[in-house]
């Protein structure tokens, strides 16, 4: 290997998305000898993401940079199955990122902090030996092995580090959103609005998003729950939608993917091993957003790695500190939104139409969350309001 990985590392991070990069960045900054293995040629490519993120959440990690922020917006529209539009001005500004540049920026910062970054290293297995974890990986057709006392599994929805560590991270079909997305160009796309389309015939157990990247172009994608995808794929549902709403569009990119939408598994740490981001099902079960949540996972896991090394203790007890920190920051919202997701799955199109109708009768300038909440109480709209709230976060 022209790239020598002979050093004795203290931490191996598997996966170079936001969770892995922030984990490596944080740990390296604290003096941990860190190596990050990414299976793909490039970081951030392909972009398996709708790229929407809250700016306030992002600022906990880095200042938004026009280099990787394609669009900023604060208007959200919910479109009910019958076409009723509910517009809401969000109090918090959101951004549509350019993940190709954003992910690269994160991993570059990890390298700046002193982490050893390696692309095209596909992890194939993990074993325990003499109190250390050995990761076997493939690099341009050759097999290599490195070992360290600590491993952070940031290897995405398809995570295998967790399985190798004996953690139960199985995703049943009801707890995964299977997704497809086009980046498309169409004259009707308004750069000021993020749109969410709901309906059991449109996107069963999920929704369709239109996230404008700029004038006339947007990420238009769909997530449907795995157990609703038997007869028609996510792509087929999306194609029907696109044909109706964006006839004659130009297609600039397309990508398949999926998002965990279950609870965070009971155990996301094992001796010497921490799972972060999608690998730990930290994405929001209701909205599917996962960037900020994954970055918190990465930061807390990186900090915990440094603490564990300081103490020379890699037990579950020490590593649980990471889980506690993440739960304190994200746990309550995650658990609440999981309950909401379960509730939403029971709503039929009539209930969605009715809610959108009642709420859209509130004048736009008065359509604050407080007013919506009040209307909801009177009309017993319950769960829908929490959903609106969750999407505005």
């Amino acid at each position, binding site marked *: 290997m022209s790239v020598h990985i002979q050093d004795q590392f203290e931490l191996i991070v598997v996966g170079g998305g936001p969770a892995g990069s922030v984990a490596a960045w944080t740990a390296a900054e604290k003096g941990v000898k860190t190596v990050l293995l990414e*299976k*793909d*040629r490039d970081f951030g490519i*392909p972009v*398996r993401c709708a790229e929407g993120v809250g700016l306030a959440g992002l600022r906990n990690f880095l200042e938004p940079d026009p280099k990787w922020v394609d669009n900023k917006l604060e208007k959200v529209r919910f479109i009910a199955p019958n076409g009723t539009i509910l517009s809401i001005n969000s109090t918090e500004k959101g951004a549509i990122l350019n993940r190709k540049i954003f992910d690269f920026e994160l991993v570059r910062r990890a390298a700046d902090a002193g982490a050893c970054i390696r692309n*095209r290293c*596909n992890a194939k297995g993990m074993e325990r030996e003499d109190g250390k974890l050995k990761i076997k990986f*493939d690099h341009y057709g050759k097999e290599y092995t490195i070992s360290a006392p600590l491993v952070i599994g940031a290897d*995405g*929805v*398809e*995570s*295998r580090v967790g*399985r190798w560590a004996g953690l*139960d991270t*199985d*995703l*049943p*079909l009801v707890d*995964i959103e*299977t*997704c*497809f997305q086009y980046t498309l160009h169409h004259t009707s796309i308004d750069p000021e609005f993020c749109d969410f389309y709901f309906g059991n015939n449109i996107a069963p157990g999920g929704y369709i998003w239109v996230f404008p990247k700029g004038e006339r172009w947007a990420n238009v994608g769909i997530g449907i729950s*795995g*157990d609703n*995808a*038997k007869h028609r*794929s*996510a*792509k*087929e549902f999306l194609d029907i939608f696109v044909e109706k709403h964006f006839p004659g569009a130009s297609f600039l990119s397309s*990508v*398949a*993917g*999926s998002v*965990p939408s279950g609870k965070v598994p009971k155990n996301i740490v094992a001796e010497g091993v921490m799972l972060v981001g999608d690998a730990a099902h930290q994405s929001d079960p209701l909205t599917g957003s996962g960037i900020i949540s994954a970055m918190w996972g990465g930061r807390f896991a990186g900090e915990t790695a440094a603490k564990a090394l300081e103490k020379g203790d890699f037990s579950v007890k020490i590593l649980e500190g990471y889980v506690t920190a993440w739960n304190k920051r994200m746990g309550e919202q995650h658990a609440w939104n999981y309950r909401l997701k379960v509730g939403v799955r029971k709503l039929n199109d009539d209930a969605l139409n009715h809610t959108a109708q009642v709420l859209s009768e509130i004048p736009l300038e008065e359509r604050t969350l407080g007013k919506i909440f009040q209307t909801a109480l009177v009309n017993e709209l319950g769960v829908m309001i929490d959903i609106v709230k969750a999407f505005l976060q």
Partner: protein
Amino acid sequence: MIYMREKRYNQNNNKLRIQSAICDFCGTCVAVCPVDCIELTETEIEIDFEICIMCMNCLKACPIHIISEVSE
């Protein structure tokens, strides 16, 4: 969930075929596989039929439905 690593679930000896030429290598099938029998790299995908239990999770969850059951 623990499954026996044997073929008793796959009595008719059918297999799954992935149209790898149009696969996006997104990992959704790997994510829903209860027995971890799918090997995925950036541009390759393979099912280990010694381990596969033909549960059809991957076939259903694939965002572009390119996995199908074929008889031997």
